[in-house]
């Protein structure tokens, strides 16, 4: 697909996203907020895993850092938890910066390891961050977490108050509606930045490092620096995603950012197709909304039982569905949904386009190629 139709599709989707709050119920608005937050996290991860080829299982740890930095910097001090009471916009920027900073601090490890080795090291990060969240309870609120100040700019709050009543075209705009537009703005900026980075000089350097570190170095790409920048950018995305999740929940707690959450991000980008920004968004829509929608409509679906009754409850069903979905995509659909869509387009138009950046090269089935004896 050439550039113009792609832009047209993006524009139509954007218009639909802008119009949706006028028709959706609160449940679907809330689901949409979670989807947009996790989509930004997934886009960041696809840059790291899909484009730069560095497996990370620690994405939820960086999201947690973003969420808690936002909660801590914008929250007011109470008897149980401290807070700095800074303006929310500053809190959001700090969330991204601190997450990126921790990513940079971790990069001596990221620069030395690659692929699954890095994935294992980042696995440790999830447990360490969780431990800190539970134990630094004067800042984080410990196990139960802490509540999060709503986002606000001077004179306008993205909550149900201040202004107390706001209506556009006869639809009352409550906190959910207002947050929706904030999230759409953040998502558009994040996706636009990610696509440009992927297709530009930085992304090509990352893809080069993914395909062959030796070749990349020979072409003048600083391998350790490229890995570090991929790690830092993806951490910043995770930080923003975490802060958005905190805003959407209105609360932060350690359990939101468990290892399962890290795996969920990986599932999103694999289903969508590694390295594809649009694929990451589609994956996020699927993985985030499936359990929520199944839970909401469980009474209407005959094969689902109420939670705790021993039958197939909604969260179990959705986990099995997307576990099977990963297996099916990896075994049958080369390049995930994005790869499948591209092949479909090629078949329909009969064109043979240039090999895109986001298709990882096929390697030999690795029989311990990474090491020699």
């Amino acid at each position, binding site marked *: 697909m050439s550039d113009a139709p792609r832009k047209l599709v993006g524009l139509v989707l954007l218009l639909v996203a802008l119009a949706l709050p006028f028709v959706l119920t609160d449940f679907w608005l809330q689901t949409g907020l979670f989807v947009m937050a996790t989509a930004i996290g997934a886009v960041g991860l696809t840059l790291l895993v899909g484009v730069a080829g560095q497996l990370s299982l620690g994405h939820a740890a960086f999201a947690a850092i973003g969420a808690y930095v936002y909660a801590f910097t914008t929250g007011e001090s109470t008897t149980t938890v401290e807070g700095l009471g800074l303006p929310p916009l500053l809190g959001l920027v700090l969330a991204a910066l601190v997450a990126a900073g921790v990513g940079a601090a971790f990069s001596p490890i990221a620069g030395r390891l690659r692929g699954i080795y890095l994935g294992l090291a980042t696995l440790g990060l999830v447990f360490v961050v969780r431990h800190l969240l*539970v134990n630094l309870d004067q800042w984080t609120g410990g196990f139960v977490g802490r509540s999060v100040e709503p986002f606000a700019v001077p004179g306008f709050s993205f909550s149900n108050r201040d202004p107390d009543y706001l209506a556009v075209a006869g639809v009352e705009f409550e906190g959910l509606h207002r947050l929706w537009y904030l999230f759409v703005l953040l998502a558009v900026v994040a996706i636009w930045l990610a696509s440009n980075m992927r297709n530009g000089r930085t992304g090509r350097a990352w893809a080069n490092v993914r395909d062959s570190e030796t070749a990349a170095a020979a072409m003048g790409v600083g391998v350790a620096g490229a890995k570090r920048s991929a790690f830092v950018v993806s951490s910043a995305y995770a930080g923003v995603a975490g802060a958005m999740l905190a805003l959407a929940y209105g609360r932060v707690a350690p359990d939101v950012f468990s290892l399962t959450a890290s795996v969920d991000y990986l599932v999103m980008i694999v289903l969508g197709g590694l390295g594809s920004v649009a694929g990451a968004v589609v994956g996020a829509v699927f993985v985030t909304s499936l359990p929520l929608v199944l839970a909401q409509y469980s009474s209407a679906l005959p094969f689902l039982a109420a939670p705790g009754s021993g039958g197939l409850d909604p969260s179990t069903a959705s*986990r099995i569905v997307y576990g099977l979905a990963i297996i099916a995509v990896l075994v049958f659909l080369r390049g995930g949904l994005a790869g499948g869509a591209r092949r479909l387009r090629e078949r329909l138009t009969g064109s043979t386009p240039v090999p895109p950046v986001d298709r990882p090269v096929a390697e030999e*089935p690795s*029989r311990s190629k990474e*090491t020699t004896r």
Partner: protein
Amino acid sequence: MSYFLEQVLNGLSYGLVLSLIAAGFAIVFTSTGVLNFAHGSVVLLGAYLVAVLHDTIGFWPAVLVGLVGAAVVGVAINALLVRNLADPNPGTAAILMLGVDIVLLTELTRRIGNQVLTLGAPWGASVVRLGDVTLPTGRVLAAAVTLVAFGALWYLFSRTDLGVGMRAAAADGPTASLMGIRLSRTAATGWALAGILAAVAGIFLTSFPAPGVAPTVALSAFAAIPAWVLGGFDSVPGAVVGGLLIGLTSALVTGYEADLEPFLGAGFGEVAPYVVMIVVLLVRPSGLLGSKEAVRV
């Protein structure tokens, strides 16, 4: 002093069980290049089979079914899924295993529910006394069985054609294949071995002093990942060293938690293995006994 000794012995025996799991990771990785994230649920599967079957067919036959079941699941995962990957490389294989783990673990969790199944092990909750040190019989037995298992593995890898073939395939697959070694067979053997080791570990992880078979067992198998990484990704002896190190660390940190809590916070025992892993990776990226990475830039 006897408290310290007890912690050390407990840590060592727990570490040996971890090293069984870690060795499974290492064997699967060297024979097929797969980072087996579903290993934890295979550990749980082995223990689950024993727990459901021991009432009807007796404990020892149930153990046999557990070991065979875990091995068969491992071989099937490799034959049906890993070998059919649309885009075979270590990254997608690792993510595939995450998918397998989600399906297996969710189904087992659903079957177990909120109950804690008992294993019906004949050694029950008995303890062994050595002077003024008390150890659960299960732990002592675990240490003995693990040592026997590693002896058997050593014999397999150094004295039998099959084991030497597996090492050759791990060192250089295509060349080994040209020498007449059937890679599909060495790969299947690797997965079967890993499954058996996982089931053995599962039985000891769920018998006394552990309460019984619960889904959290799959998570404690995750603690074997630091053990494996510490030892080196492709080294079975490394897995033993790593397992002992992690076992000792977590036993001592947990045993002296009251003294350490002011600096390290509550529940540091669960995190300590990962902290040790990150530190070791910083100093030696290929682990303590692993082979060095070939490509350097």
